[in-house]
């Protein structure tokens, strides 16, 4: 690993299920020490290095976790070799864990640190450069000592627990005193200064800056989210004007794109603004302090997708299956909670008569049942979208002109509003105990349906089956275009 890594902040991310398993093993209310190993992936960006917990392997007391020659207890050599070998085979990170007493603060003992010095150089070799490390947990605290292949040691800054009620663990309580802009006074009355400060620290990605995405981005900016990343490959056209918030006539080149004059039409298409640039302007008007990365490109391309791997929350507001697959992969491979929104008007292709109108909000948390498991990703549509337009025409997947589906701002707003409230109450810890479900809204019938989620045991994205992407981070392969 290069020297630049030394200065980066290291953190650990784990889902609620894994944290529950870990707590149950480390703290069975017997007052004793227990141990095990977290097998993790890794994501490295300018923002820091995140260790992505994939699996907890408990060490059986007296068998795998035994009285130490120098310290109180230690992982048995055979157990270490077996788990480290698995990490080496899969290119994953080995993190030994044990617990100490105490509640809100924790640190390694001298014996612990000495054992790292004795053992971790060899573990780095066994795991082909790791990283490797150790974590020590108290009830509400964690400390970490991470070793990289340059023999540098890095302290863990915090652990992020993901789920409907996310929270962080630190080595000791943090003294938090942040300036809160007076314009958020009414919001602070709902989720407090800590909640507002938390929103300001978040980096949130939105894939799609069209009808749905523009609503999400404006609301995120107005809520005071500190860092937004918007991704969209399209420029504005006149048919977007009724749905994209903050759009101006200038953004659609005053409608030149609809001219019958070919030159004016081409000029109009070139002068029209990328949708992400419109979203950036709207966001900055809403919150002058917001950091906004406007990515005029397709999330299916690896270079674009990389900008999203260190986001704290991800929204998907597009209508392509390819981007839906990418979103699902980012959520599970990089452990980023996300929400997909969509609206659909189903009409009879012959008569144009409206059959069904609905909006959907799909909350997708790591380990809650992914979009693949719940039938929301069509393998056939993925195949068709990868064809060139010529191939689609020849293979008769496009009949006549490519006709756009109906789309209305009020339907987009329905899904966006539910998604933003889910995001807000999850992020600020105000969500009541609920199930993770998809929500299907039918405004013509004025009904709302909750869809319980499935999780397939062999899923290549959200399960722990061999070769699955779950928690692998940079050590896995995103389904990107090359």
């Amino acid at each position, binding site marked *: 690993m290069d020297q630049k890594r030394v200065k980066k902040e290291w953190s650990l991310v784990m889902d609620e299920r894994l944290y529950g398993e870990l707590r149950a093993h480390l703290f069975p209310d017997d007052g004793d020490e227990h141990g095990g190993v977290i097998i993790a992936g890794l994501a490295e960006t300018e923002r820091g290095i995140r260790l992505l917990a994939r699996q907890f392997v408990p060490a059986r007391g007296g068998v795998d976790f035994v009285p130490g020659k120098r310290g109180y207890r230690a992982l048995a050599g055979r157990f270490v070799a077996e788990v480290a070998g698995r990490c080496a085979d899969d290119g994953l990170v080995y993190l030994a864990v044990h617990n100490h007493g105490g509640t809100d603060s924790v640190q390694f003992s001298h014996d612990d640190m000495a054992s790292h010095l004795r053992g971790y150089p060899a573990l780095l070799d066994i795991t082909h450069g790791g990283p490797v490390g150790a974590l020590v947990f108290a009830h509400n605290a964690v400390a970490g000592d991470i070793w990289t292949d340059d023999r540098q040691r890095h302290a863990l800054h915090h652990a992020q627990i993901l789920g409907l009620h996310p929270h962080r663990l630190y080595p000791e309580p943090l003294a938090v005193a942040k300036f809160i802009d007076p314009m958020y006074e009414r919001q602070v009355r709902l989720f407090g200064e800590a909640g507002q400060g938390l929103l300001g620290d978040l980096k949130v990605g939105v894939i799609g800056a069209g009808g749905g995405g523009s609503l999400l981005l404006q609301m995120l900016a107005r809520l005071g989210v500190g860092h937004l990343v918007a991704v969209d490959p399209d420029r504005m056209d006149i048919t977007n004007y009724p749905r994209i918030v903050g759009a101006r006539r200038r953004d659609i080149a005053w409608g030149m794109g609809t001219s019958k004059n070919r030159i004016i039409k081409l000029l109009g298409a070139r002068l029209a603004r990328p949708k992400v640039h419109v979203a950036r302007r709207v966001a900055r008007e809403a919150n002058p302090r917001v950091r906004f990365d406007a990515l005029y490109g397709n999330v299916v391309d690896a270079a674009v997708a990389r900008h999203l791997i260190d986001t704290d929350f991800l929204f998907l507001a597009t209508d392509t299956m390819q981007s839906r697959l990418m979103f699902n992969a980012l959520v599970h491979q990089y452990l980023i909670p996300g929400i997909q929104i969509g609206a659909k008007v189903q009409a009879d292709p012959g008569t144009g008569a409206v059959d069904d109108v609905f909006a959907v909000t799909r909350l997708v948390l790591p380990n809650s049942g992914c979009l693949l498991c719940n039938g929301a990703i069509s393998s056939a549509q993925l*195949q068709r979208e*990868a064809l060139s337009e010529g191939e689609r025409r020849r293979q008769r997947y496009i009949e006549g002109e490519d006709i756009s589906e109906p789309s209305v701002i009020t339907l987009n707003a329905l899904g966006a509003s539910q998604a933003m409230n889910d995001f807000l109450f999850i992020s600020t810890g105000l969500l009541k105990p609920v199930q993770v479900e998809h929500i299907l809204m039918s405004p013509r019938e004025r009904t709302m349906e909750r869809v319980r989620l499935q999780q397939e045991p062999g899923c290549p994205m959200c399960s722990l*089956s061999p070769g699955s992407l779950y928690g692998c981070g940079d050590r896995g392969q995103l389904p990107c*275009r090359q």
Partner: protein
Amino acid sequence: MTPAVQAAVTEVEQSFPGHRLDVTPESQGGAYVIVHDLNLGGRYAPATSWIGFLITFQYPYADVYPHFVQADLKRIDGANLPSGFSGPIAWNGRQALQISRRSNRWTAGVDTAAMKLAKVLNWIRNV
């Protein structure tokens, strides 16, 4: 080619030993694959054909369909080719008949390009 597409090509190669394989990478990370001299059973003339298909860059999440066979394929009993065949159309620089056999229950990580080719071949032989 993506690693998954490369692995799929290798599996096709191993599943159809003795058959020449033409593999042409496409620009997004997928590959056009043609497997030659496949026996179509006793109902067609010619009795053997190449079968071609595109493995797209989002394989194994994407289905592998449609498949293509040589354009001059006919039933030996003179009947029309069964529904599921269409064309001829231009595919990958040649004329071909298209066979649309979409998988309604494609499962990523379980279904593979080689399995799909075997199923399509089985369908051709028995339809």
